[in-house]
C-alpha cells in the first residue's frame, strides 16, 4: 500500500513538474507584458525537436544547449515581429495573435520534421533502468525532471532577485513607466523575457522528451495544462505555479484510483474552473498581496 502511494506521488510529481515548467514560461511573459503567450507549448516542442535533430551529430549536452539557444532566438523573433510594435493591443487581440502563432509553429514543425514521434536519449541509463524509492520504482529521468524543475525555479529566483537584469525585468512588470524613468529600456526587457521563457520551455522540452516523447502537436496539450496551472496558481506568480502544478499532477494521478482514466483531463480542468469561479485570483493569489505585488 505504501509502495503504491509512493508510486502515485512520484508519478504525480513528474507530471506536475512538467506542468509547472510550462506555467513558469507563461508567467515570465505575463509579468513582463501582461500577455498570455499561447505559443508557450510550442517552445517546449521546438526545443525538444531541435535537440533531437542536433543530437544525431552532437553530444547530448551540446545539442540541448543549442536547442535552448535556438528556441530563445525563436522567442525573440516572435516578440520582435509580432508583439513589439503593436500599440497597446487589446487582450483579445493578443490572445488571437499568440494562438495563431502556436498553430503556425506547430504546422511548420509538421512540415520541417514530420508527424513521427521522436524522443531524446535518456540522460542517464536507458529505458529500463529504474531507481527504487521506498519500494516504488521510477526512471532516473524522472529525477532529472524534478531536479531541473527545481534548478530552474532556484536559478530564476536568483536571477530575478540578485541580478540587475532580473531586477529590471521585475521593475518593468511592476511599473513600466517608473522602469523607463529609471533608464531601463522596457522594450528590450520584454524581448528578453520572451527569450527567457523560450529557453525555459526548450529546456523543459529536452528533459521530458525521453519520458513523454515528442511529436509536432505535443505542445498544445502542455500549453493548455500549463495555462490552466498558471491561472490556478494565480497568474504571474511563479512559485505558486510550481505549487499548483504539483497539486494538479498529484490530483490527476490520484483521480485514477477512483475515476476512469479517460476523464482525468475533464476532472482536473473542471476543478480548475471551480477554483477560478470562487477564487478568480487563483489558489495562491491573495488579493491584498496582489495589489502590492503585480508580480
Amino acid at each position: 500500500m505504501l509502495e503504491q502511494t509512493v508510486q502515485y506521488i512520484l508519478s504525480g510529481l513528474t507530471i506536475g513538474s512538467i506542468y509547472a515548467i510550462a506555467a513558469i514560461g507563461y508567467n515570465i511573459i505575463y509579468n513582463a507584458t501582461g500577455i498570455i503567450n499561447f505559443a508557450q507549448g510550442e517552445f517546449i516542442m521546438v526545443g525538444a525537436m531541435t535537440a533531437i535533430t542536433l543530437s544525431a551529430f552532437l553530444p547530448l549536452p551540446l545539442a540541448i544547449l543549442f536547442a535552448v539557444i535556438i528556441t530563445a532566438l525563436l522567442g525573440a523573433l516572435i516578440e520582435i515581429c509580432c508583439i513589439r510594435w503593436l500599440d497597446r493591443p487589446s487582450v483579445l487581440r493578443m490572445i488571437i495573435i499568440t494562438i495563431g502563432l502556436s498553430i503556425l509553429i506547430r504546422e511548420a514543425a509538421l512540415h520541417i520534421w514530420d508527424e513521427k514521434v521522436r524522443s531524446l536519449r535518456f540522460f542517464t541509463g536507458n529505458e529500463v533502468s529504474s531507481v527504487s524509492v521506498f519500494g516504488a520504482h521510477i526512471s532516473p529521468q524522472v529525477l532529472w525532471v524534478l531536479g531541473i524543475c527545481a534548478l530552474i525555479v532556484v536559478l530564476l529566483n536568483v536571477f530575478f532577485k540578485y541580478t540587475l537584469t532580473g531586477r529590471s525585468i521585475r521593475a518593468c512588470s511592476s511599473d513600466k513607466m517608473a522602469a523607463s524613468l529609471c533608464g531601463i529600456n522596457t522594450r528590450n526587457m520584454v524581448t528578453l523575457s520572451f527569450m527567457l521563457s523560450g529557453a525555459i520551455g526548450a529546456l523543459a522540452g529536452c528533459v521530458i522528451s525521453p519520458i513523454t516523447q515528442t511529436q509536432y502537436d505535443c505542445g498544445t496539450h502542455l500549453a493548455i495544462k500549463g495555462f490552466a496551472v498558471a491561472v490556478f496558481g494565480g497568474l504571474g506568480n511563479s512559485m505558486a505555479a510550481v505549487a499548483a502544478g504539483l497539486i494538479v499532477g498529484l490530483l490527476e494521478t490520484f483521480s485514477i484510483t477512483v475515476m476512469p482514466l479517460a476523464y482525468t483531463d475533464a476532472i482536473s480542468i473542471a476543478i480548475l474552473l471551480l477554483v477560478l469561479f470562487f477564487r478568480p485570483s487563483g489558489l495562491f493569489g491573495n488579493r491584498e498581496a496582489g495589489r502590492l505585488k503585480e508580480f
Partner: protein
Amino acid sequence: MKRYISILSLAAVVAVIQLGSTLCGREYYLTQLTMAAYYSLVAVGLCMLMGYAGQISLGHAAFFAIGGYTTAVLTTMNLQAHTSSRIVSLLVQCGLAKPGTDLYGVAQLSLSPWIALGGAGIITVVIAIIIGIPVLKLKGHYLAMATLGFGIIVYRITLGTGLFGQADGISGVPQFTIVPGIAIGGGFANKVINYYIAWVMVICGMLLLLNLIDSRVGRALKSIHGSEEAASAIGIHIPRYKLMVFIISALFASLAGVCLTHYNGGIGPSEAGVMKSVRYVAIVAVGGMANLWGTLIMSVLLNYLSLRGYFGSYDDAVFGAILIGIMLFAPDGIIKTIRTKVEARVKVKVRE
C-alpha cells in the same frame, strides 16, 4: 424597406449560385456551400457574442457538439426493444417516434428529430446558463481560460463516454424531415433542397441578428463592449445581458450542430475540439469582430475552401497565418480595412 436590401441581395446571391451551378451541371459545389452555411451560423452567433458584446469564447465548438450529439444520440436510439413501454407507445401515437428499417434491414423505432431539436435547445440553454453565470463574471485571460476549459471538458466527455461513441462518434443519423418532401440530410438527390434549407436558416439568422443589433437589447450589448462602467451607469444590468447574448450564440451554434449532424448523417468528437473553437474565433476576427456581414462572408469563403480541401495539409497553417496576419495588420477585419484603404485612395483622387 431599406434595411432589408442587403438581406434580399444575399438571398439573390444564394439563388444565383444555385441556378448557376445547376445550369453548369456543377451542383456538387452546393454540398460544401451547405456545410459552410451551417458553420457560418455558428460564426455569426459567436460574432454577436465576441464582436458586439465583447466576450471571448474559446469553447464555442462545445455548443455545436452539444446540439449535434444530442440529436445524434436521440435519433439513433432504437426503441424497438421498448415498444411495450407506455411512454414509447405514447410517442408513437403522437407521431414523435417512427418505426422504420435502416439500410441493412434492421427494424428501427426512432425518436423524431423534432424531439431531438427541442431537447438540444433545452440542454443548450441549461448548460449555457450554468456555465454562463460564473464564466461571464470573468474577464480577459481568465474568461479565455474558462471558456477554453469548458470546451475541453465537453470534448473529453464526448471522447470518453460510450453513449457518444467515444472516438468514433455517432453515425447513421437519419434525415430530418421538416415537412414531407423537405428534409435535412438524405441522399445525394436532396442537394438543392438542403442547400436552400441551410441558407434560409442563415438568412433568417442574419435577419434576427441584424435586427437585434439595432434594437434596445443590441445597443445594451454594444454598450457593454464599449464600456462596462458607463453601461451600468445608464442603467444596464450587465450580467443579465451578457448571459442573454451568451445563450443566443450558444443556441445558434447548437442549432447548426443539430442540422449539420442530420445533413452529414453523423458527428465525431473533432467537432468539439479546441481547434474548431479556435477556428470560429479566427473567422470572427477575420470578419472584423463587430461585423456580421464580414463574418458571414469570410466564414462562407474560408469554410468552403477548407471543406473542399484547397489548403490540403496546410489547412491549419493557413488559418494560423490568417489569424496572425489579420490581427497584426488589419485588426478591424479584412473587409473593413480594404474598404477604408480604397475609400482613402478615392478621397485623395477626388481632391486632386
